[in-house]
């Protein structure tokens, strides 16, 4: 019964590979992040597996270092958005009344502005550093998580077992984290896989527009930006990060689906 389905296994392998590469970038990357080692846009060779980029840096090393930044920012932003969004969403659902109104209408207000535009506005006046990026992305994304968490929790909060906990005199924290959270976890985990990928796309978009990760630091969106002129000359360097983003997206969601299946069992995974 501990057998992992093939799709989940594939997802686990790819996701694991990307995260491992990100984690051990200094050990794996053949060259330094900003080291110029050859001519611009050299084709792939034994010394440069993926060739070189627009100013002659090793593309494989750039990809590994860039993956480290992209994945780090996306993970932090996703964790922040889930921590913030689900806690506030559960709180609004449990409290109800004006607390719910104030929180929900504030979130509505934030969601009425496209998140890319609000991010561009904020980042154009703030110094663009990694913590600021993470904070901006996390807070903007938490509005989506808030809506989901609140919707799920409103249904759970009226169950008899939550009422029983209230009658026992339990504090809000117990009701939110011990009664509601375990029952809301399945949809949240599924959403988390999706949100992580949106975060990857978001940071890549920002970097592509020049308001994300700043050079000479590498990240996947930045690599596309630096190499986009090459496409005109038939040089595929800009497509490599795109492929990385796509394959990461698919594999993370394969894992999320599998986790969803495992956690939706009501019998502690001991069979139907």
């Amino acid at each position, binding site marked *: *019964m*501990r*057998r992992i389905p093939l799709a989940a296994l594939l997802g686990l392998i790819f996701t694991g590979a990307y995260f491992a590469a990100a984690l051990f970038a200094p050990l794996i990357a053949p060259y330094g992040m900003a080291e110029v080692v050859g001519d611009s846009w050299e084709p792939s060779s034994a010394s440069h597996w993926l060739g070189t980029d627009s100013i002659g840096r090793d593309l494989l090393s750039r990809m590994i270092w860039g993956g480290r930044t992209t994945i780090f920012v996306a993970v932090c932003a996703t964790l922040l958005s889930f921590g913030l969004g689900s806690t506030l969403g559960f709180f609004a659902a449990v409290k109800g009344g004006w607390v719910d109104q104030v929180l929900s209408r504030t979130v509505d207000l934030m969601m009425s502005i496209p998140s890319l535009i609000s991010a561009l506005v904020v980042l154009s006046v703030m110094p663009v550093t990694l913590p600021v990026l993470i904070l901006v992305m996390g807070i903007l994304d938490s509005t989506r998580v808030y809506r989901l968490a609140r919707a799920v929790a409103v249904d759970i909060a009226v*169950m*008899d*077992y939550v*009422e*029983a906990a*209230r*009658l*026992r*005199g*339990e504090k809000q924290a117990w009701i939110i984290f*011990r*009664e509601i959270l*375990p*029952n809301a976890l399945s949809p949240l985990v599924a959403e988390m896989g999706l949100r992580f990928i949106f975060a990857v796309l978001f940071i890549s978009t920002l970097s592509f527009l020049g308001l994300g990760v700043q050079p000479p630091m590498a990240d996947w969106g930045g690599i596309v930006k630096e190499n986009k002129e090459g496409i005109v000359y038939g040089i595929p360097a800009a497509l490599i990060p795109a492929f990385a983003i796509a394959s990461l997206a698919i594999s993370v969601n394969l894992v999320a689906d599998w986790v969803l299946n495992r956690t939706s*069992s*009501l*019998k*502690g*995974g*001991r*069979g*139907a």
Partner: protein
Amino acid sequence: MPETSAPKSVSDSFLDIRNLVIEATSYPPGEPPKDVTLVHGVSLKLEKGKVLGLIGESGAGKSTIGLSSMAYGRGGVRITGGEVFVNGRDIMKIGAGGLRALRGKEVTYVAQSAAAAFNPARPLMEQVIETTLMGGMSRSEAEARAVDLFRQLGLPNPETIGQRFPHQVSGGQLQRVMTAMALCPKPDLVVFDEPTTALDVTTQIDVLAAIKRAIHETGVAALYITHDLAVVAQVSDHIMVLRHGRMVEYGTCAQVIETPHEAYTQALVSVRSIDHTEKAPGADPVLTVQGVTARYKGTHFDVLKNVNVDLPAGQTLAVVGESGSGKSTLARVITGLLPAAQGQITFAGRRLSADLAGRSRDDLRELQMIYQMADVAMNPRQTVETIIGRPLEFYFGLKGEAKRKRVQELLDQIEMGRGFADRYPAELSGGQKQRVCIARALAAKPRLIICDEVTSALDPLVADGILKLLLDLQAQQGVAYLFITHDLATVRAIADRIAVMYKGEVRRYGPKSDVLAPPFDDYTDLLLSSVPEMRLGWLEEVLAHRRMAAAGN
């Protein structure tokens, strides 16, 4: 019966099921799917104009057998063996086209929950005559027949009720409209699947009488499926008792009710035989409710009107009434979930604050509650040990080994024993779930437990076990119960005092012997006389003698 009645020619028994075997596939994760047999070779025969009652607990296979008369298996259930003859032909062999001609024309079906079975977006008449029109009758003819049936079934305004939508009629009326729908295409057989189970007792009796009359006037054959032997005794000619997909006993109605042969049938017949002698009202009241009036936010009428009751320590106060009478609201007011607008509640000598936030931890601990639906009263993600252990940890600070030991003690008290502590609620049966809820309430060492319809979702034999357990626990620990129910048989079994509620008021209140002794007011009389009794001819007797109509009629 097939053994006793010599095999006749097919024509005179309209429905003839022979050695029916029904299987389903279950898919335990991680294990290979396996086939489970639900019905093991059941045979039955039904003649035209006769009513056969199928009776058994949940999981006995009664609905599955009923639906096989339409060659239908619900939820992936497969009919794998045996033959089903309807009007002389084996319907297992007539193919999809033949089944379409059969279903809704020769055989029709009345579901348990009419509210869930009607399309809320279309008027009743459209739905009642839908299959009749497909059968080739003209619209005006079909409507005339439907109106005729509405009248036969005793529905108010038979000419115009068809224009209403499902939410515009009461539950009892909707169930009768559904019966009209089933009878409209002039079927030869109607399958009634627990048609009155979801109704109040006072409404059930009207629906039951209407169904019985309609069956006799139209002369159809019927399969009547229920778990309530007293109900089936009123309408059927023959009764078949089922258990675990096998026939236990078959006979005429009188024989099964009066002289049951099998031990299991005897247990079903003698259910609710708990003897409970009323305790003297001398003891100090643990709970006093004085002049309580309450209404829900945003409404303009009182759900409770000047309610006065009290409950002596270690005794049981039963609050009875039909749905909407305010009995569950009374529980919400006492627990503080709905603060009372007026009046006061005294508990163990202390005056309770109206709202939950103002109550001390001891107030909360000593007043526990058990719910109707044990499924949703326990967090499905917590093990039994967490569920029972949390009040121990929360109120008494028990941890680790001490907590585990106490949880096991409580499990022993509710007669569940070892091996349950690390199970999840989904791994327990209905009766076990309710027992765990009782243990959770007991863990707090309460003085009073509010029991909100705790047995109404359970099979009769299981419910009986729960009531006996509650009485034993009361004898041992002196805990008082406020018992909310609409089932007067339960009340007779366990109450010391009774409050009869009607439209938010207490109509009759006092010791059990006084409340259940004549002279009655009209409402109490209606309520008492509506409890089905397990004897033939009871239904006609009651209808002839009662003094007021049910509110839901």
